[in-house]
């Protein structure tokens, strides 16, 4: 046997027990690197369990990031579309009409007139007004033809809708009054008819009537209903009435809708109220009669949409947060199991000099590492999922870095929070009882 012989070589403790050795510096405890290594080792010893537990956190984090990012992207897109309709925009549509006590549905009979539109210019705070009619028509240029919305409007339309020009010019008040056969094309129509060639100065035909193209509008994209706002050909209102829409003897001065621009900085709600009151007056509505028109404040629409979109994404995010919570409970569960399984190990560590806070730190670090690993993979998956969802739904995706940071922070906190109780249980074990545990 070799051991006792070898002993004298080492153990050269010159000091006797009685002579107190210089006590080591009050133990600073586990260094972090060692603690991390030990935590990873403990997790690696039970890989399947660690993976399954991390999965709970992973799903929660991925869901939070995906819902928040996709929600933010979708919201921004729709808000942008609403904005693209025009800032400070009021719109009036025909409402339901009472005729001899029979209530007719909205739009059953056009009851808005071009004269209504003109009158509304008098309302203080209203800076631009356009009465509009619109019909689907075939437009032809040479061999090319295209079916589009031909829209008759007042020259103010471009101001009302904040519509810029790509090329050429808008029609003038002069041209409008004279019912001249000039047209301003939406970008989609210009491209369909003329491709890359300049459209301005060319001739197109609508119902065999020739029009001179005087301008091409800058692209606006889709409206909130998903329609292409650039698929339009705008001509003066009275030109449309006379040459395109056909004579409507009953309602020769009727419009489909009226759009108005409120002065920048003016109170939208106040302006809308003034408009409503003038319209009621013009339509001779008695005080007890309902409006026979619909007045929409587009900034209200945007605000309403924004609020409901926010609510929806909050709901989704809290559903995702609940799954994070469930993941956290999974962490707690597994840590409790781990503490029980390793009771003897804890007893041993205590016996050889671990302080309670060393044991506490050991299990806390293990729980946090577990949660963070799940969280990190969850962040990657959440970002991937956001992009996949965005592609499928055709939405832009706005990865919210604060949501990512939050998710990572929350998963670390989840580990801390749900790891604390098991860790405290471990730290409070009585070394003797723990050593005797089987």
């Amino acid at each position, binding site marked *: *046997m*070799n051991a006792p012989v070898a002993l004298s070589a*080492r153990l050269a*403790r010159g000091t006797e027990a*009685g002579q107190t050795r210089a006590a080591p510096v009050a133990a600073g405890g586990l260094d972090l690197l060692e603690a991390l290594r030990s935590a990873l080792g403990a997790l690696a010893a039970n890989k399947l369990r660690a993976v399954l537990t991390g999965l709970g956190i992973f799903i929660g984090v991925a869901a939070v990031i995906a819902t928040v990012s996709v929600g933010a992207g979708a919201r921004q897109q729709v808000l942008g579309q609403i904005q693209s309709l025009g800032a400070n925009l009021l719109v009036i549509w025909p409402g339901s009409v009472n005729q001899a006590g029979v209530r007719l549905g909205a739009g059953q009979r056009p009851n808005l007139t071009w004269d209504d539109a003109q009158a509304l210019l008098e309302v203080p705070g209203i800076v631009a007004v356009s009465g509009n009619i619109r019909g689907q028509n075939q437009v032809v240029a040479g061999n090319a033809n295209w079916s589009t919305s031909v829209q008759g409007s007042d020259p103010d339309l471009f101001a009302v809708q904040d519509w810029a020009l790509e090329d050429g010019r808008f029609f003038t008040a002069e041209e409008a009054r004279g019912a001249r056969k000039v047209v301003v094309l939406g970008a989609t129509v210009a491209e369909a008819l003329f491709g890359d060639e300049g459209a301005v100065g060319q001739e197109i035909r609508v119902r065999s009537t020739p029009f001179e193209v005087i301008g091409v509008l800058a692209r606006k994209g889709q409206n909130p209903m998903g329609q292409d706002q650039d698929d339009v050909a705008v001509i003066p209102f009275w030109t449309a009435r006379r040459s395109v829409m056909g004579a409507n003897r009953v309602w020769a001065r009727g419009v489909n809708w009226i759009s108005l621009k409120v002065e920048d900085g003016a109170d939208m709600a106040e302006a809308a109220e003034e408009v409503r009151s003038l319209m009621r007056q013009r339509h001779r509505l008695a005080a007890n009669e309902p409006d026979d028109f619909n007045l929409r404040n587009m900034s209200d629409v945007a605000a309403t949409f924004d609020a409901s979109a926010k609510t929806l994404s909050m709901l989704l995010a809290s559903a995702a947060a609940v799954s994070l919570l469930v993941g956290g409970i999974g962490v707690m569960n597994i840590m409790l199991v781990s503490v029980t399984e390793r009771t003897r190990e804890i007893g041993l560590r205590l016996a050889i000099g*671990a302080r309670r806070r*060393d044991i506490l730190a050991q299990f806390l670090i293990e729980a946090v590492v577990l949660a963070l690993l799940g969280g990190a993979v969850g962040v990657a998956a959440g970002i991937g999922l956001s992009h996949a969802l965005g592609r499928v739904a055709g939405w832009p995706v706005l990865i919210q870095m604060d949501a990512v940071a939050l998710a990572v922070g929350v998963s670390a906190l989840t580990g801390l929070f749900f790891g604390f109780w098991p860790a405290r249980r471990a730290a409070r074990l009585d070394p*003797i009882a723990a050593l005797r545990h089987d």
Partner: protein
Amino acid sequence: MLLIETQGLTKHYAAGEGTVAALSGVSLAVSPGEFVAAMGPSGSGKSTFLNLIGCLDRPTRGEYRLVGEDVSRLPPDRLAGIRNRRLGFVFQSFNLLPRADALANVELPLVYGSVGRRERRERAAAMLALVGLGERMHHRPSQLSGGQQQRVAIARALVNEPDLILADEPTGALDSRTGLEIMALLQGMNREGVAVLMVTHDAEIARFASRCLRFHDGRLVADEAQAPAAASAELAALDDGGARAA
């Protein structure tokens, strides 16, 4: 200065309605470098005594000085520091960390003693070489025999250069020959100046101590010095006999 000095050391445990006196009024003194065996029937208070001396527990009454310092009323974390610096533990069931190799197991007390990584490695490796396991530093406990595991445990108990090794039935889980090897190792270390307090119910094993305490019903009933048998000599004789028989 004395290594251990107790005055009326008493430990009561709550049991059902009343209390059990696991240890009653034990007073004794142990000098540095002694090899003390604690004997007695099951339930006589040996382990309770060892746990108190090992600062794993605090007495209900009485005083305990370890190397002159009164440790009987210290809070748990102070006791942890004392266990780390002054004491080493050897258990009947080894209590090695199953996932760690021999080296990491021996390093563990140094981790809690805030010793740097390199120094830890060196000291643990030297200690493993000392107990004859220099070749098996990277074996896990499951890859080692019972006797080898207990050697790792002894190396772990020694690595902090303690004043006292506490061993509760260190040979209890081993066959008699391996037990003899472990006793030879403990005796060798004791010769180097480390005091040993060993609990055993086995008179064969108690022979290797230089002093024998006997407990009964929680009382210290006998405390005798004795001429210790030499474990390494018995081991050599055993090997000789085996060789002749073969």
